[in-house]
């Protein structure tokens, strides 16, 4: 038995023994997703235990080093863990911007004290993070941000406002882009600060979206004191960290779906169930053509994700592809949601109803429209490809 086979056997046994039964059921709604944090309201004892057990093994972040609370697994072992979790349909124990976004940047740019302080707490789901990037006046042109952090000797004094801070009202800490040098060129005056959302002077206000839900907030900073040791990397070099982190965010959004995780059913399977077949052909032939075209692109896209990963692993990588994956993946997801709305017809337009789940599709469709805006719009991704991959001249 190879080491990997032995690891698989151990992992399988451990998961069987430790994954609570209700954590093997499909995710039905937003409240089934565990985000951790100081004020986490666990939906069930199973959810709490699952996070505690996985966090203790570092398997919420299988490939992070064990010294920082990670699982210390190799890429191959992490794949085995993912496969074994999928086999028993185990839910992800923790959804976390700390894991997806801040963690990789902390590992690369954080100092030892910062890594030791923050990474284990992220891994165990003890601290929930939010992202302070966009501002009311700085969207696609993020580098024009104006939230200021004035050097007061032993601390920075932060003033300004961030927008689209996901779950800021529920987050414990924020990683935040601030301007430390107002005189420097716009990309060079930016720094990357970490601070506690419980600090005096921080307030949040939810933003209601077209989908009716409000995962986003506007966040205000009024003379917030942030200790100097909370600066990550070098003052004035925050833009480099911001870009590195955005690459991870893009990969996350490009490869994600807005329907709440788990295995997605294909558009054609859903169409077959709801519309039915006529002589082995989807009963709506015009829609069938649109669905087939979408599925060709979806298949070719997932093969491209597979190829890009294989190329990166083997060193054949063409590089700068995260913009392509973000652009194409989000456009495809929007198209998928529109097709699902078409398949459902007028029933998909239900907003509030007697049945549980009424309005879910419409909300997911509306939410998906943001996919190609957040994390850099599709147009910004095309700009990046034109500039970095195609080397086209600047306008």
């Amino acid at each position, binding site marked *: 038995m190879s080491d990997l086979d032995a690891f698989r056997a151990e992992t399988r046994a451990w998961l069987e023994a430790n994954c609570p039964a209700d954590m093997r059921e499909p995710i039905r709604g937003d409240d089934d997703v565990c985000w951790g944090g100081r004020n986490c309201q666990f939906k069930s004892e199973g959810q709490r235990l699952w996070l505690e057990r996985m966090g203790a093994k570092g398997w919420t972040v299988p490939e992070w080093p064990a010294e920082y609370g990670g699982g210390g697994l190799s890429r191959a072992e992490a794949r085995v863990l993912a496969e074994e979790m999928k086999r028993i349909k185990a839910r992800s124990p923790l959804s976390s911007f700390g894991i997806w976004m801040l963690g990789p940047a902390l590992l690369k740019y954080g100092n030892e004290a910062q890594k030791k302080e923050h990474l284990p707490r992220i891994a165990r789901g003890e601290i929930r993070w939010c992202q302070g990037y966009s501002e009311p006046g700085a969207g696609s042109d993020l580098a024009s941000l104006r939230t200021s952090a004035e050097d007061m000797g032993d601390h920075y004094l932060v003033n300004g406002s961030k927008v689209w801070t996901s779950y800021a009202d529920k987050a414990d800490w924020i990683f935040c882009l601030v301007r430390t040098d107002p005189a420097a060129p716009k990309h060079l005056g930016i720094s990357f600060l970490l601070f506690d959302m419980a600090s005096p002077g921080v307030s949040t206000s939810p933003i209601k979206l077209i989908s009716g839900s409000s995962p986003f907030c506007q966040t205000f900073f009024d003379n917030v004191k942030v200790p100097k040791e909370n600066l990550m990397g070098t003052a004035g070099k925050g833009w480099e960290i911001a870009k590195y982190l955005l690459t991870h965010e893009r990969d996350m959004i490009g490869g994600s779906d807005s329907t709440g995780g788990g295995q997605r059913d294909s558009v054609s399977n859903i169409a077959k169930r709801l519309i039915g077949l006529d002589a082995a*052909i989807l009963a709506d032939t015009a829609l069938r053509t649109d669905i087939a075209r979408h599925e*060709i692109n979806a298949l070719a896209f997932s093969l491209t994700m597979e190829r890009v990963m294989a190329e990166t692993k*083997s060193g054949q990588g063409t590089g700068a592809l995260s913009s392509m994956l973000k652009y194409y993946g989000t456009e495809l997801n929007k198209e998928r949601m529109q097709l699902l709305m078409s398949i459902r017809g007028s029933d998909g337009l239900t907003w509030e109803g007697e049945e549980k789940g009424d309005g879910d599709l419409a909300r997911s469709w509306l939410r998906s429209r943001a996919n190609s805006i957040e994390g850099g719009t599709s147009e910004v991704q095309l700009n990046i490809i034109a500039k970095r991959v195609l080397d086209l001249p600047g306008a």
Partner: protein
Amino acid sequence: MPLILTDDQLMIRDSADGFFNSEAPVAQHRALRDAADPVGFNRDVWAKMAEMGFTGVLVPEAHGGADMGHVAAGIIMEAMGKNLSAAPMLSTAVLGATALKHGTPEQQAKYLPLIAQGAHLLALAADEAARHKPAHIATTATPSGNGFKLNGSKGFVLDGAAADTLIVAARTSGDTNDSAGITLFLVNPKADGVKIDRRSMVDSRGTARVTLNDVQVDGADVLGSVGEGHAILEKVLDAGRACLAAEMLGLSGTAFTMTVDYLKQREQFGQKIGSFQALQHRAAHLFCEVELARSATLKALQALDEGSDRAPMYVSLAKAKAGEVAILATNEGVQMHGGIGMTDEYDIGFFMKRARAAQETFGDAAFHSDRIARTLGY
């Protein structure tokens, strides 16, 4: 199998790119077109392709081939697509070799070594409908003597005018659109009753109309079993479709590169036109589309090498996606070149013509979308 080229395949790619770049560049395609060459390719290049092992890429080693598999065949076709190199690679080395692997030991021993040596050309005479429809075979094969008598007409036979042997699909039973009852025959184009008319096509490739009038064939010239030719034909077509996807991927890549280069040179309104966002976004989108076509094509070729049950689905995915992208890349190429793109003197138009022909060959994107939907049960 990881979805990347192996080290051996990377070497084949480098040697194929180098070979076609120097031996059969676009300038040669232009010269053949200008000369209205009767076969539409250069026989010296074909001989050198045999020396390189390209012609025997799908021929087993036991029959003198290099037996490198479909991924390698696709790599060669992609390199040909990049340079618009004309050669009977598809008709003989892909379609012919795949068909003959279903032949009797005698047929294999006779033809496969000749294919590997580049000494014998084959052409598939199957399609009859102008829009690809593999089961639509009205050509008849009626029992006669110790074999059959063939009657019918094939409108779009690739390399039909150059072929030494035709692989003819004819109906031994059933109705015109039945998949059962089709039989494949090896036919000598010089036999009595065979008429070959070269057609001048938009892509300047050597294509012929083949008319069969009481052509007598021997029982020993049946390829595969009588009445069961459709299954072989599907395998032959799938190998061809995947390789056409690879060719279209190659020509899309060159059309794209030519276009991006042009955007960096051409100045209007006092600046490079590549600095205009309206064009940058179209070029960036096209880049993504070519990447998707590349993934789908490689997957199809790998699935054929693995003998996967899902190979037909992946082949249709590749043919549909690469076809759509080739049309997009060449349409955008001509548009972004502006007026010069419309001139015969400039090469981009050749790519558009070849893209159209390759897209139509063995099923366009619409045909393969339908095939994928059927495979997935809708």
